[in-house]
């Protein structure tokens, strides 16, 4: 690779420094936009930028080419300051076909960079996208955007002249041409992509060569073609030093399980039934049999949760992930674990609903179901990761709490975290908190429901332990003995004990971090994947000098013990959520504060802009 790869230094055109940029690649499902976006993210990360990504693909497996519903896109924001979200409006849009233009044009900023592949703007594609004429002929387009019409297809074909590939195969390289071009525009290094191509097509050198050539052709095209008059530089962000990698939320959840398995030296049984967007956790787990994590693809979600309850009874860690209707189906099984006081962990990778809903879209609307979606009083611990990388730590923490308190734990991830990626400072597994496990083996004074004083946990017994044979089940149990009991006062006691056990998990929660002044006009409270959006919006408002702060909850049940105190330091409280107002109800009920929700349920993350506006509005209303 000592080949003369164009590197930022060789760019001859004027370079303007930017803080941040938001770029989206959009094209047909078959156009390879996901790979393009991922590689651009890798290049940005290599160059030291902070970044957040947002992949977006159609619900259809292979939508017919050229249709609106077949458009696939990949967006990212990268910058030299902390980047919290994939960005609201686009600085640059690459549209590989008319459908992509039609679907995404409205998200491009006025004056933004619009790069289109003119070759794709022919009759068939225009028809499929529902255009009556060719939008590229409409002068309005050039009025609004800095439009660059590039015949990407032809330029790619030209670059691959002479290679032993057929026309179709060559054409398929065109995404790397656009990647090269955009890499030049934003002075990103193409080395990591060249390396990736070489590895990916190791078995097929002709393809490796073709894609590499297309990439470089795009890069050089930017540099030499007359139409691009400037390019942009983005300084490396100030990020904590260390080794980084890119990680998606689903992979981080899976790796969090592996870390807990390694630490505890326990078997993990992972129960799954495929469902979007949780399936990738299963796929990832299945790759790592060496870690003693045993995955079962069950016949349905009920069996999946059943299997992990059985595993927990056997002294293993039981984990499962699902989404939407799949979580609803787990209620009965989770409730058995509540009654039997067995440690299981459920990942709910929330998707837009109700019912089958919009399987590939994100949402935060399962919070109340996690808390209350089971018959009778059924308290469980609920946690929520804030970023893709945080999924690793929260998965690990969920297992730690489940084992320590002998209690089910629900982790609320979502579709956005699941497939979104961020540069992740790789942790040293040794620095993770310990997870002590001690199985009861002493028959003396043993009873299945004697309780630990600090945690109220009952003892965990591995079947196979002589002298501790016992029987438990879903009928109400007498405290201590664990015998079936219909006694009225015992039931009341057990209801309270199960609740208290969960309440005591509060002792695990570190002091809440307040982002901003410790008291003031307005506090924004969020949870889960809105972390980036809220933080970005609040920082913007803070820069305008307002007394606004935010807190982001990772612990939804129990809530942090210091939260009530914090809430009372602000005049107004705003709770932005991708649901119709769930956490806000909890805060109002719990602390009797007049918290106000900001709610958009569009299957998408909130935008920084709308959250900022909501803050401004509430500050205004106040007066």
């Amino acid at each position, binding site marked *: 690779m000592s080949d003369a790869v164009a590197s930022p230094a060789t760019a001859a055109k004027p370079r303007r420094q930017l803080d941040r940029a938001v770029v989206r690649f959009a094209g047909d499902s078959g156009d390879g936009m996901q790979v393009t976006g991922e590689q651009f993210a890798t290049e940005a990360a290599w160059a030291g930028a902070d970044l957040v990504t947002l992949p977006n693909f159609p619900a259809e497996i292979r939508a017919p080419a050229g249709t609106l519903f077949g458009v696939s896109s990949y967006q990212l924001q990268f910058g030299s300051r902390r980047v919290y979200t994939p960005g609201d409006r686009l600085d640059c849009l690459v549209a590989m076909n008319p459908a992509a233009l039609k679907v995404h044009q409205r998200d491009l900023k006025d004056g933004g960079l619009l790069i289109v592949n003119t070759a794709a703007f022919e009759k068939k594609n225009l028809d499929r996208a529902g255009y009556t004429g060719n939008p590229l002929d409409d002068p309005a387009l050039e009025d609004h955007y800095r439009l660059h019409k590039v015949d990407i297809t032809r330029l790619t074909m030209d670059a691959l002249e002479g290679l032993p590939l057929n026309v179709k195969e060559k054409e398929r390289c065109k995404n790397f041409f656009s990647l090269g071009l955009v890499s030049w525009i934003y002075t990103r290094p193409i080395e990591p992509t060249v390396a990736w191509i070489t590895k990916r097509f190791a078995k097929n050198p002709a393809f490796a060569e073709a894609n590499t050539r297309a990439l470089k052709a795009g890069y050089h095209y930017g540099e030499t073609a007359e139409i691009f008059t400037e390019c942009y530089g983005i300084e490396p962000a100030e*990020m904590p030093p260390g080794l980084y990698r890119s990680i998606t939320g689903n992979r981080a959840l899976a790796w969090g399980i592996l870390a807990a398995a*390694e630490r505890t030296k326990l078997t993990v049984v992972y129960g799954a039934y495929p469902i979007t967007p949780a399936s990738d956790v299963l796929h990832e787990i299945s790759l790592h049999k060496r*870690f003693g994590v045993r995955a079962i693809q069950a016949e349905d979600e009920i069996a999946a949760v059943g299997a992990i309850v059985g595993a927990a009874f*056997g002294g293993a860690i039981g984990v499962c992930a699902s989404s939407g209707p799949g979580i609803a189906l787990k209620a009965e099984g989770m409730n058995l674990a509540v009654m039997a006081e067995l440690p299981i962990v459920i990942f709910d990778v929330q998707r837009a609903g109700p019912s089958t809903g919009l399987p590939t879209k994100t949402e935060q609307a399962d919070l109340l179901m996690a808390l209350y979606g089971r018959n009778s009083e059924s308290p469980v611990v609920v946690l929520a990761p804030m970023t893709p990388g945080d999924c690793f730590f929260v998965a690990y923490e969920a297992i730690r709490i489940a084992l320590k308190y002998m209690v089910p734990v629900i982790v609320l991830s979502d579709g956005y975290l699941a497939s979104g990626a961020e540069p992740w400072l*790789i942790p040293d597994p040794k620095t993770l908190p310990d997870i002590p496990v001690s199985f009861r083996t002493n028959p003396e004074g043993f009873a299945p429901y004697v309780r630990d004083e600090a945690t109220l946990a009952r003892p965990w017994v591995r*079947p196979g332990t002589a*002298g501790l044979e016992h029987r438990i089940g879903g009928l109400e149990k007498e405290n201590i003995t664990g015998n079936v009991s219909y006694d009225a006062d015992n039931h009341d006691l057990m209801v309270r004990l199960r609740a208290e056990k969960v309440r005591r998990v509060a002792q695990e929660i570190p002091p809440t971090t307040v982002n901003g002044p410790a008291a003031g006009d307005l506090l924004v409270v969020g949870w889960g994947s809105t972390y980036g959006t809220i933080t970005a919006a609040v920082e913007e408002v803070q820069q305008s000098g307002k007394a606004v702060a935010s807190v982001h909850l990772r612990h939804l049940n129990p809530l942090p013990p210091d939260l009530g105190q914090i809430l009372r330091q602000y005049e107004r409280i705003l709770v932005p959520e991708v649901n119709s107002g769930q956490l806000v109800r909890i805060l109002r009920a719990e602390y009797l504060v007049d918290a106000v929700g900001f709610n958009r349920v569009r299957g998408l993350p909130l935008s920084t802009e709308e959250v900022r506006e909501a803050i401004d509005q509430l500050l205004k209303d106040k007066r």
Partner: protein
Amino acid sequence: MSEITEAPKKYTKKDFESDQDVRWCPGCGDYAILSAIQKMMPDLGIPRENIVFISGIGCSSRFPYYMNTYGFHTIHGRAPAIATGLRLARPDLKVFVVTGDGDGLSIGGNHLLHVLRRNVNVTILLFNNRIYGLTKGQYSPTSELGKVTKSSPAGSADRPVSPCAFALGAGATFVARTVDRNVAYMEETLRRAAQHHGAAFVEILQNCNVYNDLAWNVLYDRESKIMNELRLEHGKPLLFGPVDDRHGLVLEGATPRVVRVKDAPESVLWVHDDGNTWKAHVLSQLWAPDFPIPIGILMQVEAPAYEEVLLEQERAAIAERGPGDVAKLLVSGDTWRIG
């Protein structure tokens, strides 16, 4: 490949009786089954602490409380799934599943299907009393068409399912049928089931004297039993009927026909071969009054057990690349350093 260990000491029936009051109705067939199982347990030679009974919900599913082993009385219909997870976590344990005709074939039919086709190493005992006992007497999926119960005062409209035919259709590797009042024979069949490698399915015809008394009377009544009970013995011809006028079966194509032994040459009589899956399907379809009811082991064949295949994959992966290492995993693939 089963990792179940041998018992170090000799048990008696008493060792398997728990300290709980047995709460079935006086006269319930479940008592006889409990006793047969407690009696049979010592023969398995497995340490008591390595045995687990998993059940669903129903009168029958109360069973684990009465066994002095580990036990888990779970939720309605899901015991096979729970047992599967347990076996995967703990292949060193001997796992029994106790279920009923409602628990196993109504709400739990799907899990039963899958535990059988996967051939998970569990012994499944389905107590078939053709009624929902615990909920006080509604018809079940094995109740006969036209059954009058609280929920079907005009007679049920559902054609019953045959548990053994279902199990075979699901791809079970061991299928047997026993009768609660035939204690010695039941014990023998249960023992064979418990010793099977893979999923063993036993339908136990059980009397619910409160809500469906004498549902199996053709097999209880001394008189009718003679023509209705067909004891299966591997390698022996299928014979039934009075001693002085034995009847047998012949197969014409796959179609069975009843013959008088005295009218038929011995060579044409159907001889039971419990390794023959084709014949097992025919056996599972035999039912009174046209045919006698087969009692015993309809079929037993060998096949890999689900969890053992998975564990073998785990062992192979570790053998090939060593045990997992999270620190290494975290830095695998593309990484970059900052600062």
